[in-house]
Structures are given as C-alpha cells and as structure tokens.
C-alpha cells in the first residue's frame, strides 16, 4: 500500500485567469481578481465585490460547443478538467479512468432564475433550467464531455468539497480500483450563496484581508480546478515521469457548530496532523502552507491557532491565495491544490495580498511578497460548513 499517487496534470479557471498559465502569471504579478460585480445580477451589486471568471456563459459555451442552458458550474468545470487532461498528455481512454468532482451550488445559478417564474405559477419556468440542478448533473455534463465512464461521482461537503474528491481519487488509485482520476471541483457565483453568506454577515464590502488583525470577512469567487492523479504504473508509462505526488491527506470534523469553527480549530488541527501522519512527515518538513484563509474573523483565528499549536516553533511560510481568487467554495480545495502543485513545480511561495497587521493572537504572519524557494512539501487546507476539515500534502518525489 505504499504505492505513490502522482500528479500528472493540472487545469484551472478562476477570476485571475482562464488557464494555468494565466493563473500563474497573476499569482506572480500580484494581480487579484476581485472587482465590482458584473455578471451576477444581484441587488448587492454595488456593495459586495466578487471575484468573477472573465468569460461569459456565451463565450464558455461557444468554446466548449455546449448549449447555453447549461449551468455555469458545469461550463467552468469542463474548461478546467479538459485543460488538466491535455496538460497531463495522457490518453485517458487507454486506462481505467474516473472523474470525481465536487460542488456546493451545483446548477443553482440556473435554478434561482427558474424559481422567479416558478413561484409566480408552478407551471411556469423553463424546465431546461432546472434539469441540471443536482450537483451530480453538473458533474455528468463534464464527465460526458470528456468521455469518462469508468467511475463518476460527486462530493459535497461545502467549502472543503474538492479536497475530499482529490484524496478519494488517490485512495481509489492506491487500491487498484482506477489507474487515472481527474479530480477536483467547481462552483459558480450565485445569488443564493451571495445572499446566504451575506445573512451570516461574513462578506467583506472591501477586498478581503485574510489573516490580518483587522480582517472583515470574505469575498466570494468562482472557478474550477482539477488534477490528473495517476498510479505508479501510469506514471512510469509517461514520457516524463511526474515529479509531484499527493503524499498525505486527512479528513476530520470539528464537531463544534454547523457553520462556525471552534476557537482552537480542533478540526483544522486534526486534519493537518492526520495529513502529516499519512505522509509520514514532521511539522518541520512542511515548506509552505496554502491556507484556507477566508478572511473571516472566525476562520482565520481557528486555523491560525491550530497552526500555532501544531507547528510550534517551526512556523512554515503561509499565505491565503483567496486574497487573489476570493472564496470559490466547493472549488477552493482543488484550485488551491493546483496552486500548491504549481508552488512546488515553480519553486514559488505566493503572497497573501493586502496584508497589513499581524493578528495579535498569532506568533506568525503570512508571506506578503512572492518568494523563490525550493519546496519539497506543501500543505493545502480546506475547511467548510458542517465542521468538515480536510488537509492535503503535495510532495516533490525524490529519486
């Protein structure tokens, strides 16, 4: 069971770029994706900045040759998953290939428009707009587009969803159930989530400042990220064997409150500790943590305290790339997993934008400037409603 699971390819679409190259360039240049709402039609347009993907539904549909009633979540998913496969160079049809996606909103972007007409009269509203409401329906649009059938499923654990899809992929590969898995997640911006987070009073009306003493909340974002995970056998068959593996993972539960994290970040601590154990690493072996770092008061103190307790005396460089992409909910785990892989591949630590004042409870502060450094092990944290906490560790394969 010591078989490694390699990362053979990555794909991404977010507010800071429509592909891996554009995302990397934005991360290097410090270009954030938040701005005034353009695409989402909400009454909160002028008050709440969001991080929208620049391409419209029409542009995405024509690029993918998909009909325009399809949920934006599925369009974003398909773009990123296709890029991941082409980036890997693998002929997925030669292997037992799975598609494991994750989403928290599914086809809600279409359903919420359908509902306006439906509530007026139950016979009203175009059924085409609700037929893909289910999370699984969104996954199937992408799976069918990619021609993947050997195993297809969807995870939904709120904001940690796509971290879970990634380790499930690794586990199924290790156990010989599949050879190749395209795993990750997607979420589009919706009025449903915007208003939901707004009622919780955790949205920042300015650009978010994760891990800052004076943080005010999060900005919502949208996007999709996918990784192509492969077995040792598939890795050996490639022209160039991948150099990065998923070495550790853990899913733990905070069991404190439906939405709020415990003050000490118990679930966060257990997830990070469990991932280290799985990877057989010590805290000092972690070279960088890509934080969950939403910018809410509650998340950042819980996550920060958990890091303080686990990494005592060996605080690795940390940063939240949500300062670029906003919080992409069910997609965030996968988007940040892609960034973690890029961090190792490029030898880069991405900055935590707009950071000003260190949190008084924490003995460390996030990285504020792009750093060039060889990285061997990178941890990526994802925490969600329902106390769902997951941590992943990506490692450079030595020898």
């Amino acid at each position, binding site marked *: *069971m010591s078989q490694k699971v390699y990362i053979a390819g990555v794909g991404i679409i977010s507010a800071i770029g429509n592909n891996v190259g554009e995302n990397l360039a934005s991360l290097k240049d410090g270009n954030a994706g938040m701005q005034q709402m353009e695409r989402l039609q*909400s*009454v909160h347009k002028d008050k709440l900045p969001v991080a929208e993907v620049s391409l419209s539904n029409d542009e995405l549909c024509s690029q993918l040759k998909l009909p325009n009633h399809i949920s934006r979540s599925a369009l974003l998913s398909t773009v990123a998953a296709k890029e991941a496969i082409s980036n890997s160079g693998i002929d997925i049809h030669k292997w037992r290939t799975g598609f494991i996606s994750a989403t*928290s909103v*599914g086809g809600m972007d279409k*359903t*919420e428009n359908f*509902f*306006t007409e*439906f*509530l007026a009269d*139950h*016979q009203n509203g175009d*059924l085409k707009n609700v*037929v893909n409401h*289910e*999370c*699984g*329906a969104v996954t*199937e649009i992408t*799976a*069918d587009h990619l021609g993947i*059938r*050997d*195993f*297809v*499923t*969807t*995870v*939904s*654990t*709120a904001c940690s969803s796509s971290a879970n899809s990634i380790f*499930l992929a690794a*586990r*199924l590969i*290790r*156990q010989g*159930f599949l050879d190749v898995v395209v795993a990750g997640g997607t979420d589009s911006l919706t*009025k*449903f989530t915007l*208003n*939901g987070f707004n*009622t*919780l009073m955790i949205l920042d009306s300015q650009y978010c400042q994760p891990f800052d003493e004076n943080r005010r909340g999060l900005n919502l974002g949208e996007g999709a990220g996918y990784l192509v995970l492969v077995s040792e056998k598939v890795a050996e068959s490639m022209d160039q064997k991948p150099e990065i593996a998923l070495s550790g993972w853990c*899913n*733990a*539960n*905070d*069991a404190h*409150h*439906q*939405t709020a994290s415990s003050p000490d970040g*118990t*679930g966060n601590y*257990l997830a990070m500790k469990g991932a280290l154990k799985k990877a057989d690493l010590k805290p000092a072996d972690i070279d960088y943590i890509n934080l969950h770092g939403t910018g809410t008061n509650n998340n950042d103190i819980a996550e920060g305290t958990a890091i303080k307790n686990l990494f005592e005396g060996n605080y690795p460089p940390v940063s939240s790339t949500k300062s670029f992409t906003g919080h992409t909910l069910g997609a965030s785990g996968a988007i940040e997993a892609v960034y973690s892989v890029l961090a190792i591949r490029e030898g880069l630590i991405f900055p935590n934008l707009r950071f000003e004042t260190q949190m008084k409870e924490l003995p460390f502060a996030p990285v504020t400037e792009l750093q060039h450094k060889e990285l061997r092990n990178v941890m990526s944290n994802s925490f*969600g*409603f*329902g*106390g*769902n906490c997951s941590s992943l560790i990506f490692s450079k394969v030595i020898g």
Partner: protein
Amino acid sequence: MYIRSASAVSPQASFNQMLSTPAVYTGDKLNCIEPDYSKYIDPKLIRRMSRIIKMGVAAAMEALKDAELSMPDAIITGTAYGCLADTDAFLSRMVEFNEELLSPTSFIQSTHNTVGAQIALMLHCHHYNNTYVHRGSSFEAAVLDTQSLLEEGEAENILVGAVDEIIENSHAIISRFGIYKESESNKLLNSGTDGTMAGEGASFFVFSKNKEQNSIAKLEDVKTYYKTGRKAENIIHNFLMENNVPVENLDLIILGNNGDSKTDEHYNTVAQHLFGGKRLVGYKNYCGEYPTSSAFALWMATMMIEHGKKINNATSPKKILIYNNYKLKYPSLYLLSAC
C-alpha cells in the same frame, strides 16, 4: 465488510409492521412515517431541524444503538437532492423579498453535508465525515468510500446512510417531467402503465471491517456503473461470477422495478433471462421511487436476513442479491450473505 445494524425512517412504520400489514398509499407519492424524535434528539434541537435532518439523525442514532456502537470511525452520507426544504425556504424568500430581509438559518442548513454534520455534532465525532451527491448512485458512492476506507485501514466501524426528501415544490417540478402517476402503492408494481410514485427516506447502517458477534450479514460485494454500454444481464452475470455465486445459490433477488411500464420491461427481461424460477421481490411499493432508494432495499434485505435467522426455517434467505437501476442510468448491485 459486515453489516452490524440497519435502520430506516421510511413510508413503513417498521419492518415488522411492513411484514404483517404494510402501509398503503394512494396518490402519486409515499411519505415517511416519522418516529417520535424526542427518543433521539434534544427537544431544543428538534425545533430547529428540518424534516430531512431529523429523519437522517433518527435513523443514524437507531443504527448506532442497534450496533451497540457509541462512536463510529467515520460518518458517510449519500443524498441526491440534499436538504431540499431548507434550500427551498431560502431560495423562495430570496426571490419573493428580492434579496432582502433574509435570515441565515435555512441557508446554513441547506448544504448537502448538513445531515452528516449534525450527526457528528450530536456525537461529538471528530472523525472522517464525507457526503456524496451523485444522483442515482449517491448511496453507492458512500458505500464504496466505506469499503475503501476500511481497506485503507483508516476505520473499523463506519456509519453510512442515505437521505432524500420530497417537498411540495420539488414534487411539483419533478411532476412536470411526467415521471409520476396516481396509483395505489400496493398495486403499483403491477400497474402496467407509464409513471411511478415518488418516495423518500433515510436509511443508515453500521458497517464493520471484521465480523462481530452482532453482525447480521456480510456485504460480499457492491458495484455501481455509470452509463455503461454493457447489457444488464452481462453486468449481473459477471458480478455473480466474480463472487463465485451461481444464480442457484441465491435465495432471493430484490429488484428495483417501480411500476413504470417504460422501465419495468428492463427488469422483466433481466428476470426472464437470469432468474427463471427464483424468488423475486420488488421494494418500491413500500418506499416509492427516489434516487437513493437502494439504501431502503439494503435495509430491507438486512432485516429479512435478521428476521430469517430468528424464525430459522427453510424459507429464511441466506443469500440475497439486490439489483436497482435508477432511471436505467445507474445500475447497482449488492450481494449479501447471512452470517
């Protein structure tokens, strides 16, 4: 892996009741008979929880009690639609009040992982917790994760289940696709016309890696397929071959036909080609049709094995195959043996 316990909140009051006088429904749906929740949940919490959460929590707590397990090593849930009532409440209010005057309660309970999360919260369970939301294979994904987690050695005892609910608005929308008909549930499976009756339910199980004293059945194998081009007969035949179980050795086959003539033909063909002369039963006359109904079938099979052990006669089933194929897109198979 072994099934230590099985519990369901369903349109049937209990397994014994279902054996003697099954609840019969007239109309186009079967709704759950809800238990007295105060047995399982703090009254203060009951008021805040929507129906699907209460049904899920009650089934989960009952399964844990029956297994004599206080703390599972993992909680895994499958749901196709998630918490519809909370989603509908927030969405409707958002539309009606034009994004103003909203309260967060229904939003925070609308996420698909709410049932699994609430169980963890009540148990103070910090262990693995995951939720699968893949239409007609949501429960199957949860069971596959269970199997994989046990194999990985990351857990010994796992609480796994499925929940889905009918609400007025979802029923109105799904009805517009022409899926349901007015019928009587006890005549549904032989109705011979297009359409079926909607159903709902929460079914939870404790699965364990090792055989325990109180294990009821061994789940020999489970398989699910997505839009496979293969014929159902081939899939089932291979599944049985892989498990070295010839059809003759099966005591009972539980099939997912739902009274819709469009899809019943599929099950009839399978039954004719593979299971001539065998004992066949349907289950959707008891629970209705819904994407995670195979969890009800697994509960029913487990209960039949347990009941069979008690009465211990020649008709007690020792080997049961379940074949469900939701909308003919998600064939799933379960093979159980008494232990």
